[in-house]
């Protein structure tokens, strides 16, 4: 083969190998580290995988936040108007976490169906609701102040 062509061929082969390795690595890393989002109704229906890190989100049910007396354990209920999911968390909640407001939680569901959160995210400003929470709502209200309009039942 002509040396110039040979060089080009080598270059192409190198490029193909290099980019396949890169893509393979990216896919691998993505698989291990992406978190799927589930609204409370799907979690309650058992559609969410257990013991695998996922992301959940909804409105914090008023009156459901309970703090332990002697530790930093806390529990609350996330709801989307259709179903409730109990969440437990140990640590300090973000400042803007409040009852009747939207929150997103990262963590795992254990065998009892309790969401053990490793991280709790609350909104950054007055009218903001995370888009996935707003979209997962019962009556499809896709509004930024969705938690304020939700009727929490009893």
């Amino acid at each position, binding site marked *: 083969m002509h040396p110039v062509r040979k060089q080009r061929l080598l270059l192409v082969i190198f490029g193909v190998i290099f980019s396949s390795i*890169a893509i393979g*690595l*990216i896919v691998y*890393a*993505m698989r*291990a*580290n*992406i*978190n*799927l*989002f589930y609204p409370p109704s799907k979690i309650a229906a058992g559609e969410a995988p257990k013991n695998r*890190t996922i*992301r959940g989100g909804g409105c914090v049910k008023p009156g459901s936040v309970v*703090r332990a*007396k*002697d*530790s*930093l354990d806390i529990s609350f209920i996330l709801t989307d108007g259709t179903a409730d999911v109990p969440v437990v968390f*140990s*640590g*300090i*909640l*973000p*400042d*803007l976490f409040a009852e009747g407001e939207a929150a*997103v939680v*990262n963590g795992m569901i254990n065998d009892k169906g309790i969401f053990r959160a490793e991280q709790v*995210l609350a*909104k*950054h*400003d*007055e*009218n*903001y609701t*995370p*888009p*996935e929470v707003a*979209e997962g709502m019962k009556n499809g209200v896709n509004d*930024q102040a969705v938690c304020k309009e939700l009727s929490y039942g009893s």
Partner: protein
Amino acid sequence: MVPEIGQFALILALCLCIALTLMPLLGAYYGNKLLMHSGRSLAVGAFVFVSIAFFCLAYAFAHDDFSVKYVASNSNSLLPYYYKICAVWGGHEGSLLLWILMLSGWTLAVAVFSRSLPLDMQARVLGVLGFIAVGFLLFIIITSNPFDRLLPLAPQDGKDLNPLLQDPGFVIHPPFLYMGYVGFSVCFAFAIAALMAGRLDSAWARWSRPWATLAWGFLSIGIALGSWWAYYELGWGGWWFWDPVENASFMPWIVGTALLHSLAVTEKRSLFKSWTILLAIFTFSLSLLGTFLVRSGILTSVHAFANDPERGVFVLIFLLVIVGGSLTLFAFRAPVVKGSVGFNWLSREIFLLGNNVILTVVLITVLLGTLYPLIADALNWGKISVGPPYFNFFFLPLMGLLCLLMAFGPASNWKKTSAKQLVNMLWKPWVSSAVFALAFPWFYHDEYSIPAAIAVFIGSWIFTGLIADIAYRLRHSESVMAGVKKLSLSYYAMAIAHLGIAVTLIGVSLTSIYTIERDLRMQEHQTVDLNGYEFTLQSLKKVQGPNYTADEAYITVNYRGKPLNDMHPQKRRYKATGTSMTEVALDVGLFRDIYVAMGEPVSEDAWAMRVHVKPFVRWIWLGALMMAFGAFLSVTDKRYRKQKAIITESIEQPAPAMLKGKVLVND
């Protein structure tokens, strides 16, 4: 009345920018000098009117004009005056106005400082900048007018500035970040102008280099300020979350860094020309993408704010026009330029190419991680988020590799370097860094940490490599002092910036490895121990601020029996919004920070507290400051000034200037 003047000024600025786009570009196309000369005065005019608009908005804030909707939703009569002024960029509309102010400021700077450029080049650059300004002015006037009124029913008082933003960090972080973001528009304009003119030479690289460096310096400071602010303001002691909004600011920085190095090759060796142009286009496109991501509200982020999706669509269309247009132009024009000089496989060109390749790969992984949730959502693959482990998986090894290679760059020669020379020069730094790095974790902490050893090795390798390089450069000079004076300012600038990378790297690694953090329940008079640091909650009290009330804790800290600072963290409750905020107490040190934040009350006399001891955390931002300082220093290098002086002289006396030009080429 004042807001209407602002509104009117914005519209006038839009008209001027339309003229600024059309007249110089047409002038350059037809070779009409009058039209080309108009660019400079139009740029001044646009700047004046945008400033008027900006000051009108600031005036409305300062005078509590709550009939202006934007003021009513971002200010309050109780707000201290300095936050009232800064509240101008507290929301979407105002921060966009700040963007435009910066853009017209950079345009003005180009008009003032590039008189030495050929007239047609000047005209094209200003025309492209004018076009970008038109896009953003249309955006602000059509979709997000900051001067909209709430009439006839103006509210009595404003809704207050978001408490998170009532902080000194907010005063300086957005301006610096935007200076950087927008600064890359100048490089972009230079690249487009060069493509239009079909003139891609090393002169072009020399013109755009100081602009790129300057923008990069500002962006470095902006990102560092953001990280520092998040560190103490969000109250969980993190300084980087791989959050989409952070990535949005980080991506232009990554490509910008690649651009700086590629520009160096293009200037000195006339190589990588098309690639440099492409990088300039991508850097600015990523700045626009960042604006789009942050402003469209399609992301879930710790930094997300309420948004209007329509605005996102506008930025997206503008982004497509800019990226699509410039890439099309690139496709038509770039293949004409081809590198003519060769280089050896072991040369500075190769190391700088390596820098570019690695940074590009880093960029692609960050970009994928940031956009993948959006793509997946658009294709109905479910709602997902990409977590920090993904980013760290790629970022850490790639950046480690980049930093390892960093010491070779300055030490190698253009065109060709002998391996022997490199080995002779660098074996000592290599060995001494290895010894130091192996010993460091041993002495620093009870538990030996291999990652810490690697990080310290890379950091000190960069440092000692630079020293060896300086020693090598000085080998022929009579005395050290004489030699030190002989090295150029831009060499020192490079050394400081590289050192800054080393400092940040050490800060990031050691903080991540050695941080101790606890969430604790603390009772009055109770003492908790954190690796020798004893925290005692002495008392709790209530405090009144100008627009908030707060719970304040008084905590004393002892280290191995010796008393350190007293700490006063607060939990504030802002009256107007009813939101609460954590005010962190910090004991700052070069080698460690102590960080105490109040969580929430657990009982009458007990609070949940977050207590951290963070070693080397200051180094992260110190390094960024060094990088920026290096960038600003390199811009003052006489190389750029001399060039200008010669060209202005050459207009008056052509003959001697030619001579000087020759001398310059020779050195």
